[in-house]
């Protein structure tokens, strides 16, 4: 990394917008000379081309190509049918990663959304709301890499009898409990990793849920109070149903995130002690140049996301009808 890269970067930062500007101005000059019917036919494609081109090269084509690779051997020389998929669904390590991803899917999604909802509702009732929100939101801008190092210290383990350096073990030590090797012990490590994921995600859920909570008119809540509903009933029977559309949007996002989880597992345990998830499993196959197997893992991940993709498209179409 030297002066050359700095110059290349400056050229890119200045050059790309200028190049696009040139593309637009020169292109429009050319298009305006054409006949009206040709103009109206060609112009939209000319404008959409850079974006659609990028999306095609880096997403659409690779997506299709990955499906093809998943049916081929590591050297990409021969068709091997479903062998890569058979490997994925029979090999113990990959099955563990599949199980862990399911754990992430259920617990990460549920608790991130649930805690986001609870905290948003609680904070709505106090005067220091904005300050408390900053505290809860703080982990969101932090990278998963940094969050992993933060939590490596929380989960740090020293042998019993020595001073505990990990916050969590020091805390349970106060109650006379023996320290736990949270990240090594296979009964706690997945829960520990999922908790770190939840910790980084709750702020995101809270902010979005809180925004639509503010949109609920206070008259509705007043009416419920006059009818004699207590606070718990109001939350359960009035607020939550009104927030449901938002909760499903946030929930879908969390489901997708849970399936794509990579950074936290990669940095904190690198998949050791049975903590692998499908994304880290795929990456290690990729590192070992088992492209076929890696592609099959990718396809499985994609298939798991397809229902959510359809939900998103449906929601988009509904929004379009309302425009």
């Amino acid at each position: 990394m030297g002066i050359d890269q700095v110059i290349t970067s400056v050229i890119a930062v200045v050059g790309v917008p200028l190049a696009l500007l040139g593309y637009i101005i020169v292109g429009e000059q050319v298009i305006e000379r054409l006949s009206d019917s040709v103009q109206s036919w060609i112009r939209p494609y000319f404008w959409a081309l850079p974006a659609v081109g990028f999306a095609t090269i880096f997403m659409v084509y690779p997506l299709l190509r990955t499906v093809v690779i998943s049916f081929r051997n590591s050297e990409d020389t021969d068709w091997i049918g479903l062998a890569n998929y058979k490997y994925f669904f029979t090999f113990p390590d990959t099955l563990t990663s599949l199980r862990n991803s399911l754990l992430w899917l259920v617990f990460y999604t549920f608790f991130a959304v649930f805690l986001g909802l609870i905290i948003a509702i609680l904070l709505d009732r106090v005067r220091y709301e904005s300050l408390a929100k900053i505290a809860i939101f703080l982990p969101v801008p932090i990278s998963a890499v940094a969050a992993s190092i933060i939590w490596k210290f929380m989960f740090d383990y020293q042998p019993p009898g020595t001073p505990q350096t990990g916050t969590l073990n020091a805390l349970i030590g106060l109650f006379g409990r023996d320290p736990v090797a949270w990240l090594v012990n296979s009964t706690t490590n997945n829960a520990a990793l999922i908790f770190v994921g939840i910790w980084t995600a709750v702020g995101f859920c809270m902010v979005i849920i809180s925004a639509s909570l503010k949109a609920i008119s206070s008259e509705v809540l007043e009416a419920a109070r006059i009818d004699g509903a207590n606070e718990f009933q109001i939350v359960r029977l009035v607020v939550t149903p009104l927030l449901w559309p938002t909760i499903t949007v946030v929930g879908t996002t969390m489901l997708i995130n849970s399936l794509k989880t990579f950074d936290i597992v990669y940095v904190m345990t690198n998949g050791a002690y049975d903590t692998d998830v499908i994304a880290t499993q795929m990456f290690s196959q990729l590192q070992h140049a088992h492209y076929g197997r890696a592609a099959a893992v990718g396809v499985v991940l994609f298939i798991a996301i397809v229902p959510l993709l359809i939900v998103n498209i449906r929601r988009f179409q509904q929004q379009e009808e309302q425009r």
Partner: protein
Amino acid sequence: MSAEQVTTRRESAVAGSVSALNNLGYRLQRLPLHLVIIIFCAIWIVPTIGMMINSFRSVSDMGTSGWWTTLFPPHGFTLASYNQVLSLEGVTPSILSSVLITIPSTVIQLTIATMGAYAFAWMKFPGKDIFFIVIVGLMVVPIQMTLIPVLQFFQLIHLNGTIMAVWLAHSGYGLPFEVFLLRNYLGGLPREIFESAEVDGAGHAVRFLRIAVPMTIPAIASLTIFVFLGVWNDLLVALTYLGTSTARPFTVVISQLVTSLGGGWQFLTAAAVLQMALPLAVFIFLQRYFVRGITSGSVKG
């Protein structure tokens, strides 16, 4: 409820002290609420503070006592971890590399996305709806589905291991979401403005550059923060296309140090603090734009 009943019963007797009593009762009733909130806030803030404090302690202190012991004298604060991290081979270049990856990636994708979004918002063409539905679908496609073919593509054109590869990859991955968001924003601008410009003889180039772009600046600003931090914090994309290249960014170097060091990783707290300094600064100073970007883009996967 009960506080209210107490009030009505005693109202006639001691009107003055009642409101104080009522107030106290109300406060006591709300005590659990405050307690729960404080516990949540502590869980969400203490780990970060603990690690920040640890980053200013010596490695031997970190390995033998918890960060909280430093709150009492002797404090023993030192910058040793920072010196150690920055003197490690590859760390300082990787910080520069993070900057050189993040800024061009952000600029490239946002300029392309704005132009594409304009076409989808203000032009009619056959297949437009299908194209756009594909874009909506692409927003949630896991990038894992693209890693292998894109890696092979970079190897083919000899871009593998260069920062240019990561610029292109990030731009490709970010585009669907940005086109989607900007198209919604652009499409919400008043139609009359564009129509009257057309009547005045302004072509699409003028309408885009003089009307659409300036009016979209608020959305672009929020998106810039969002995209910038996304690329700055990225691990997977850089790890895949840069791996062990000298152009690898800070996040990749930190993650590789964590795995290779095994024990004695404690001084990496300093690296983590340096890595998250920029996102935290952005969050603190540009909070409003940051949160707006998140709420408006809540559909993103």
